[in-house]
C-alpha cells in the first residue's frame, strides 16, 4: 500500500512461491536445490503403502572383520520402516544400508535414454524449422529466382543478400527453387537420426492361472499407491519403492496493480510470523456487538456496540445509515439509527495496560451516544427497529467512515518542514446480524 490506498476486496492478490521446506524435518531448501531435487527432501521418505513418513531403524548384524574373516563383529545396518502400517524396506527387497542417510536411491526410469534421444532429435528438427523460417523471412523480400541460376549463384546471393537487379522484382513470391532443408556447408554435419519405434505383432496374454488363482489382495497395489509412482505404476506390492518426501511451500502475496508485497512469511520454516503483513484488519476500526436486548417486531431497541482502534494515532469515525437503493445493502431486515456525531477513538497504546497513572484523555463524550471509553475502545448505542416478523436473524447495515493515515509511506523530504501525513477518508459497508426476534 505504498502509493495507492486500495483495498483488495474483489480480486485475489497474486500468489507467489516464497520458500520451500520439508514438512517432516522442517529443513529449509533454497529454490535452486529444490529444482534440482525435483521438490523432494533429500533425507525423508514416504511409505509407499500408507504415505506416512518412514523412519530409519538400525539393527546389529554380524559381519566378518576385514582383517580376520574367521571372526565376526556386530555391525550396524539401517533399514526404513513405517510406524503406521509396519511396512519395511526389506519387504521390497531393498538391502540394508551401512549409512543412516544418503544411501537410499530411487530407481531410475528405464525409458530415460530413449526419451532423451527423442528430445534431441526433435530439437534438431526444430532447429531446421527455425532456419527455414528465418530463410523464408529473408527470402520473402527477394523475388522468384529462375531455375537457370546455378547453385553457385544462389549461394552467392544468399550470402550477400540483395545484389543483382533481378532480386528487386516481385517481392513476396514463393521461393521454390531454393534448396531443401539441407544444412549449409560449414555447418555441423552431424545429424541425429532416431530409430522409429517398432510395432509388435503379438502382445503378451494374461497368464493362464489368472483365471483360477485366488487373489492375494494385500499383494496387489491399490490405484492410489500406483499413481504415486507415475514412472512405474507397479501392480505388485513387492515393487513399491519408497519415494522422497515432497516439499511444501510458503506463499507470498503481491498486489496485482502496483506489484507491492502484501504478505511475506518468515524464511525459517519453524516460524509462523510474517516479515510483511499488510492486512486490512490492522488499519480499519473494528466494530463488535457487545450486548443485544430482546428484539421485538417494530419496537425500537438499543444495541450496544464497541469500536476498537487498531492504529496508534487518533482516529475519527462517522457512522452513516445506508441510503435507499444502495447496491451493497441487500440483507438488512431492520431500520437502524446510528449516532450522528463524529466519534473519536484514542490511539492504541501498548503500554496502557501497565500505566495506571496515565491521565485519561478528555474527549467530552455525549453520554447518550457513548456508553463507555477504555483506552482505544469506545462503546456506543444504535437504535434498531426490526421491520420483518419472519424467522431468521435481524440484520442491520450502515456505513462507517474513518480517516486513515498511511504511516508506511516513505518519508519524503518536504520543503515546508515536517508536514503531517495527509489523512485519507475511507468508507466501508458494515453488516451486523443481531439474532432472532423474541416474540
Amino acid at each position: 500500500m505504498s502509493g495507492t490506498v486500495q483495498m483488495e476486496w474483489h480480486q485475489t492478490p497474486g500468489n507467489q512461491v516464497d520458500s520451500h521446506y520439508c514438512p517432516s524435518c522442517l529443513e529449509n531448501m533454497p529454490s535452486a536445490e529444490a529444482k534440482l531435487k525435483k521438490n523432494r527432501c533429500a533425507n525423508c521418505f514416504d511409505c509407499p503403502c500408507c504415505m506416512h513418513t518412514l523412519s530409519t531403524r538400525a539393527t546389529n548384524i554380524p559381519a566378518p572383520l576385514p582383517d580376520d574373516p574367521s571372526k565376526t563383529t556386530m555391525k550396524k545396518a539401517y533399514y526404513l520402516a513405517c510406524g503406521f502400517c509396519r511396512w519395511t524396506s526389506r519387504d521390497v527387497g531393498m538391502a540394508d544400508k551401512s549409512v543412516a542417510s544418503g544411501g537410499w536411491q530411487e530407481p531410475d526410469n528405464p525409458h530415460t535414454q530413449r526419451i532423451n534421444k527423442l528430445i534431441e532429435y526433435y530439437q534438431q528438427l526444430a532447429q531446421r524449422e527455425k532456419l527455414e523460417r528465418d530463410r523464408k523471412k529473408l527470402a520473402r523480400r527477394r523475388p522468384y529466382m529462375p531455375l537457370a541460376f546455378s547453385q553457385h549463384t544462389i549461394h552467392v546471393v544468399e550470402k550477400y543478400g540483395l545484389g543483382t537487379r533481378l532480386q528487386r522484382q516481385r517481392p513476396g513470391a514463393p521461393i521454390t527453387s531454393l534448396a531443401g532443408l539441407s544444412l549449409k556447408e560449414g555447418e555441423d554435419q552431424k545429424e541425429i537420426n532416431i530409430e522409429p519405434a517398432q510395432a509388435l505383432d503379438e502382445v503378451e496374454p494374461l497368464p493362464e492361472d489368472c483365471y483360477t488363482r485366488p487373489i492375494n489382495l494385500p499383494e496387489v497395489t491399490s490405484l492410489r499407491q500406483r499413481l504415486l509412482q507415475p514412472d512405474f505404476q507397479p501392480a505388485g506390492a513387492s515393487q513399491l519403492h519408497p519415494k522422497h518426501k515432497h516439499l511444501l511451500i510458503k506463499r507470498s502475496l503481491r498486489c496485482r496493480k502496483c506489484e507491492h508485497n502484501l504478505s511475506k512469511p518468515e524464511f525459517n520454516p519453524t516460524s509462523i510470523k510474517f516479515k510483511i503483513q499488510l492486512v486490512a484488519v490492522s488499519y480499519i476500526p473494528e466494530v463488535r456487538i457487545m450486548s443485544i436486548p430482546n428484539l421485538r417486531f417494530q419496537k425500537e431497541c438499543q444495541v450496544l456496540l464497541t469500536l476498537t482502534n487498531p492504529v496508534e494515532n487518533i482516529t475519527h469515525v462517522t457512522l452513516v445509515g445506508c441510503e435507499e437503493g444502495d447496491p451493497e445493502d441487500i440483507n438488512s431486515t431492520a431500520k437502524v439509527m446510528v449516532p450522528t456525531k463524529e466519534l473519536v477513538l484514542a490511539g492504541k497504546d501498548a503500554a496502557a495496560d501497565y500505566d495506571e497513572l496515565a491521565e485519561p484523555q478528555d474527549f467530552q463524550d455525549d453520554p447518550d451516544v457513548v456508553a463507555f471509553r477504555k483506552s482505544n475502545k469506545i462503546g456506543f448505542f444504535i437504535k434498531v427497529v426490526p421491520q420483518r416478523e419472519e424467522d431468521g436473524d435481524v440484520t442491520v447495515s450502515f456505513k462507517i467512515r474513518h480517516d486513515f493515515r498511511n504511516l508506511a509511506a516513505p518519508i519524503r523530504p518536504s520543503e515546508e518542514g515536517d508536514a503531517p501525513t495527509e489523512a485519507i477518508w475511507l468508507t466501508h459497508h458494515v453488516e451486523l446480524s443481531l439474532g432472532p426476534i423474541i416474540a
Partner: protein
Amino acid sequence: MPLFEGLGSGGEKTAVVIDLGAAYTKCGFAGETGPRFIIPSEIQKPGQQQSIKVVQYNINTEELYSNLKEFIHMLYFRHLLVNPRDRRVVIIESILCPSHFRETLTKVFFKQFEVPSVLFAPSHLMAIMSLGINSGLVMDCGYTETLVLPVYECIPILPAWEALPLGGKAIHKELDGLLVEQCTVDSDSSTGQSLPTYIHIDPLMLFVLSRCPVRTCFISDLQRGLKIQEAKFNLGGTAERPTPPPDVDYPLDGEKILHIKGPIRDSVMEMLFEQDNEEKSVASLVLDALVKCPIDTRKALSENLVIIGGTAMLPGFLHRLLAEIRLLVEKPKYRDALATKSFRLHSPPAKPNCTAWLGGAIFGALQDILGSRSVSRDYYNQTGRIPDWCCLSSPPPESVYDAGKTPPPLMKRAFSTEK
C-alpha cells in the same frame, strides 16, 4: 536427469505440461520422462464430504471458472511448486473438448494466474510424438469415452474420428449395478447385508467401490470372452459359461468386507467388446476409422496402432483388443473394404495413461517452437478469445453456453494442425 532442464539454452524456464483428464490429471515439466503427479481431477470444498469433479461440460461459466481456479491453484502451489507467471503452459486436450470449456480454462490461466503463454496440444498427436514416428492410428481409452483418431505424416485425419462412450465411467456404472445386485457386505455387527443399505448410509462407499475393478477384475482372452458373452445373452439356452475365477473378499475401510462374486471379475469388462445394436465395440472403432481413411494411408496406419489412456491399462486389454480386431476384420463388413490385414501394436516409452503427457513434455522442451506456436497473453488480451479448430476466426454463438442446453454438433473438417 533430463538434458534440457532449468535455465538451459535461451535462459527460459521449462514449461509446465498439464493433461487435464476427466478422471485424472497428469502434471509435470517439459523435458522430463514422466509426470510429477497423477492426481484425481477433483476439488474438495470445505465442509462438503463429496469432492467436486473439475471437468464438467454442462455447468455454468461462473461455477466452472471457480472450480478450475481452485484446481489449478492446487496444481501450482501444492504439486508443481513454481510460480505460474514464469513458465509457459502446454495443455494436452481431447479434440472433442467443447470450446466453452477451453475458453474458460484459458481465461483462468491468463487472467487469474497470468501465465506467459498457453498451447493446446491434441492428445492423439502427442502420442505419436512420443514414439518418433510420423503416422499411427491412435486410440485413447479414457474415462468418459474411447476416441480413435488416425494421424498420417503428423497430420490428424479429422474426418475419420470415431468414438464410443465406453470407458472407465461406463465400467464403474456396470460394476456398481452388478455389485448392488449380487454381492453382500460383512461388517462387525452383521453378515450378508446387501450393498444398498451401506451406500445409503455412507456416500463415500461409492468412491471406494470405484477402485475395486483395478485390483480384482481383468479381461479374458478372446475365446473365453466370447463364451462368457454367449452365456450371458443366451437366455435359457445351453451355452455354458466358463468356470468363473474365485471370489474375492474385498475390505472396505477396515471394518466392512465386500464379497465380490467370481463371475463379476471376468465379465464386467466384456461390455467393452460386446457389440451393441450397431455392431460397435471398442475394437470395431479401429476398423471403422480405417475404412474412413484414404486407401494409401491404411497400411501405414494399421501397422502402427497406438493405444493410450488409463482404461487401456486393464490386465488383458491389449491382447484382447488385438484378437478382436483380427476377428472382426474377417467379417463381411470389413473383409472387402479393407485390404490390409496386418495389425501391429506400439509400446510407447511410458505407461498408457502418461503417453500423451510424455508427447507434450517432449514438445514443450523445444523452446523456440513452443514460443512460436503458443497463444501469448498479449494476443489473448487483444482478441479476448482462444482459437479452436472448429471456430478459428469467429467466436461460437453465445447462446449455447447456458447450462442445460445441448452443445452444438461438432463440425468435421479436414484441417492440418501443427506438430
